[in-house]
């Protein structure tokens, strides 16, 4: 999967609850997928926290992207990657995330970036 070539790689670097950044990132990825552009999502750094299950953003008057993330397969956006080192440094495991995301080593992440035509970093 990581060998594939993508038209657009959307990189999520921001944690939940800090503003509209990640919602706007996801909107871009979803529109790209609906336009039949080969699209991938990568969660890196603090961005991996978006993937934690059982978040309740409504408790702090916010709307997270977690419901949208769960709906990604409906949009044919199934190329979802997560940076392994960012998971490890936060004591997280790929199999406890709210959706299936392929863990990538930093080298594999670099390959993904290199093999993608366009990048939008949020």
């Amino acid at each position: 999967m990581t060998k594939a070539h993508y038209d657009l790689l959307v990189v999520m670097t921001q944690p939940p609850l800090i503003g509209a950044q990640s919602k706007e990132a996801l909107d871009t990825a979803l529109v790209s997928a609906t336009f039949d552009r080969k699209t991938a999502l990568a969660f890196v750094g603090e961005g991996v926290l978006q993937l934690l299950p059982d978040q309740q953003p409504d408790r702090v008057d916010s709307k997270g992207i977690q419901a949208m993330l769960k709906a990604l397969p409906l949009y044919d956006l199934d190329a979802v990657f997560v940076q392994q080192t960012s998971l490890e440094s936060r004591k997280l495991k790929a199999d406890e995330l709210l959706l299936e995301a392929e863990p990538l080593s930093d080298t594999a992440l670099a390959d993904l970036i290199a093999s993608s035509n366009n990048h939008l970093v949020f």
Partner: protein
Amino acid sequence: MARFVLNICGAPYASGAPLSALRFARAALADGHQIDKVFFYQEGVQLATRLACPPQDEIHLTQAWQQLAQEHQLELLVCVAAALKRGLVDPKEALRHGLDTNNLAEGFTLAGLGELIAAMAQADRTLTFTS
């Protein structure tokens, strides 16, 4: 000659994004390159207000972009969802949302994200300006 799309995500004055993008656009055009579309997204949409009045001895970024766009027939597209969220509306959206005024500057057009995606697909390179 290369074809560029510019994606401006940083706010005017709070970030250097619109100014850096403007300077890049001027240089690229002067070198014979083509700017297919200029897309304003996230905080970048704030550039498109017609109500900004910066001090006279500072650059007026909105007017600078309008002037460059006019000289080179550039399309200045503003993400409609990001704009509405931040209080940027054209007359049509003002009517739809029952607002008593509108503030989208002349030369800017509200557009969907699809326009950015389609433009990126055509361009040689898309540059994002955030800071």
